[in-house]
């Protein structure tokens, strides 16, 4: 597949300069060129979406390639949800979709209409922190803070799912959320505190 693609790209590049040089080429050839161009360089599709994030309805237009993560960060300025890898390998982008933890970098914006999205910004109610946020503060469950929103969203689910029977169980069910500072002590203690 990739070989074919690169072949056709090369082919197209060569014909591009060729056709550009011949400004007087017949209309028919030019329309074929436009067809080929559309095939190789697809135009972007922007679609209207109605989405619900943190109990707020947004009527937006989004590129069909836009992930939920980039929608939150780049378009809606909800930057509490973090990008750590963009490949579903680190958990920094964890949000809740219909109440369950999910990776927003592996979710396209186009997939979320009809679903309720909760981000870290929607976790606390007004000025009152969620108990898990309080626990992270008390147990110092972070250092740089970058993986923290994802850790907290996962931790809330971890408790809800009932995976808090032991330190080993908490560690297992929190291992999808990487922390390079290594603040795992505090993360586990926070979850134990809330699960009590």
């Amino acid at each position, binding site marked *: 597949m990739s070989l074919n693609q690169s072949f056709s*790209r*090369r082919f197209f*590049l060569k014909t*591009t*300069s060729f056709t550009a040089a011949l400004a007087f080429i017949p209309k028919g050839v030019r329309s074929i060129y436009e067809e080929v161009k559309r095939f*190789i*360089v697809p*135009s*972007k599709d922007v679609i209207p979406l109605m989405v619900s994030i943190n109990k707020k309805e947004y009527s937006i237009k989004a*590129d069909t*390639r*836009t992930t939920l993560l*980039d929608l939150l*960060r*780049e378009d809606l*300025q909800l*930057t*509490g949800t*973090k*990008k*750590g*890898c*963009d490949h579903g*390998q*680190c958990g*920094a982008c964890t949000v809740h979709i219909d109440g369950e933890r999910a990776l927003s970098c592996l979710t396209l914006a186009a997939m979320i209409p009809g679903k309720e999205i909760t*981000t870290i*910004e929607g*976790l*606390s109610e007004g*000025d*009152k*922190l969620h108990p898990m*946020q*309080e626990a*992270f*503060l008390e147990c*110092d469950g*972070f*250092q*740089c*803070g*970058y*993986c*923290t*929103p994802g850790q*907290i969203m996962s931790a809330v689910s971890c408790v809800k799912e009932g995976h808090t029977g032991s*330190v080993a169980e908490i*560690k*297992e069910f*929190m*291992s999808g959320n*990487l*922390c*390079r*500072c*290594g603040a*795992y*002590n505090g993360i*586990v203690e926070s979850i134990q505190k809330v699960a009590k």
Partner: protein
Amino acid sequence: MGFFDDKSEFFNVADARVDGIAKVTGRGKYSAEYDVENLCYGVLVGSTIPAGKIESFQLDLARQVGGVIDIITHLNKPTIPGLADDAKIAESRIGLPVFHTDKIYFKGQPIALVIAETLEDATYAASLLEAEYITESFAVDFEMEQIKFPLSVTGKERGSMDAWSNAPHVVEQEYTIKAEVHNPMEMHATIAQWMAEDQLKLYDKNQGVNSVQRTIGKVYNIPPENIEVISEFIGGGFGSGLRVWPHTLAAIMGAKKVNRPLKVVLTRQQMFSGVGYRPESWQRLKLGADKDGIFLGILHQAKHSTSVYENFGEGITRVTRLIYALANLKTESATVPLNLSTPTWMRGPGDCTGDFAVESAIDELCYQLNMDPVEIRLKNLSLEKSPETGLPWSTNYVNECIEKGAAMIDWKQRKSQPGQSREGDWYTGYGMAVGMWNAGRGNASAAVILQKDGSITVQTAMTDIGTGTGTAVQNIAHEVTGIPKSKIKVELGNSNLPPAPSQGGSNGLSSVGGAVVAAIDALKLQLAGLASKSNTFFKEAKATDVLLSENGISFQSTNNQFVSYSDILSNAELNSMEAEGSSGPGEERKIYSFNSSAAHFCKLRVNSRTGKVKIERMVCVADGGKIVSEKPAANQISGAAVGGIGMTLMEALEVDKNVGGLIADDLAGYHFSVNADVPMIEVAFINKPDPNINPSGSKGLGEVGIIGCAAAIANAIYNATGKRMRDLPITPDKILLAF
């Protein structure tokens, strides 16, 4: 600014970090997260070959993608004055002159920047861009290449190598460590915004805003003060933010070219070749001892990788000179250029690598001598003076670290011979090692702004990469002034604030702590000066005479000589007052040597059938002088141990020797410790102030938590199994091969 202050909206959690609320609510703004008007996006394109020259670009397809604004390559770049020719490039110390050369030094080297209206447009267009190259031969195989580079003597030789040629006990072994990558969770990012022809604003991820300011000012030939660097929240660094990397320069160039604010965020893949790594290394160690286990001499040889376009020296043998009283010592080193990007300092740079070899060799010697690893170390420590400088240590509590750690892990449970503790396929073992780091201090400044109500704001340009610098600054200010923490705001990470050194080498708190005290002293003098107009007691008062409190100042402890802040400021018709202070190292450095130290203890199990290593307990006792904030300090140490476990058991930058590039360069391929890989780390401190290093008595803790970790684990694996592992990372396949 003032981002550290929004905790007042929520109730106050006792002892929480000053930036805690911002972090647990996701409100803290990291560099890529600022909402800048008219922003466009840049995506870097990397070379697909490891060595050669760019012959031509094919940009037509990428240009036709809707939303593409411009594409920068070396053919059309706006020339930066400081990179105008080879001589200037060398002088700039910028390393890779991005877009100022057609030469390719490594695979993934940025060759183009695609600028577009959206991230999606830029990413897609970047995928369509192609270059044609003239390829050249390349070298990426460290093992093969290092043989070609001869060692040369580094540092002063002590005694002579002949003096211990007849040592009754000698260990002579080689140790190797694969390259490791910092991989902070936040990818490096820059938003560059030109405010005027020679005025620049940068939202940038780094560990030293003033250093970025100076570097960029120099290459653009504009005064540093014309560049504002904003780095309020930094999602980890571990050394990767101590230099200005190509993407930052690319963002600045791009923003200038399209005359719009531009954001460049590295992808996780680009983080593997874009912002440094710990170099791959080879070491040979020869250590001799007499029959009582007294070290007679050491020969430490080390080589590590660097890039072909820049020489990076790591200092692997530095730690060898620090810990033990070695009368005969020789160290040699060499760097080995490869077609990979330039490595850089990574947590415990040099020492972490060297310490693995030294502390492993000592363990090997113990089994030869049938001597306890704790005992042999206590016998050989140089507790009175630095063996390198000859100056007395200001403080050295490494022996106490060892004794405390041994008690915590119940060291006497350790079997003196390997392979003695077995249950089915699981072997249990204990290991230990020590680490040490030269405790430094730099020149730093801070400012204190006092309001009528007695609330203060403490400012310094120093960053907080997660170490808790801001919290420590608050704690120091609280201790010195008596003003409650809820009335102390902290502002950091902006180059407009009083200058501070980069946050690296465990120097952060040691430097800035003194500056905070100096600024408060300056404030005291200002207050006393104003107060003396109404109360003669304060005339010509020294800073030491003046006591601050929540509401005002008093003369020494004479409570009846009290003037409130509100009176002082009102009488002077001021709403607030500001004082600045600086502090730095001085004469004490000519009198004393300074170190931070740690002892690491590990209990683990090894499965002989699967090669799995399960760490059951990890204990680290550290001496960082006075502990200014207990929780963040313990977090630093346990986090470093988590990093050390990764270094020892899993982390490796894998290089494809045929293609000349990296493989497995993402977080699925490059493993570092996840939560389930590590036990709850047990941390303790000696917590005795160093009276000479700085006013707060605290020494840096960032590095010692990892220095020694690897040897403690490898030594425990030997104690469990009788298999000596000298090649990091110790992955299950290596253990299985050993059985």
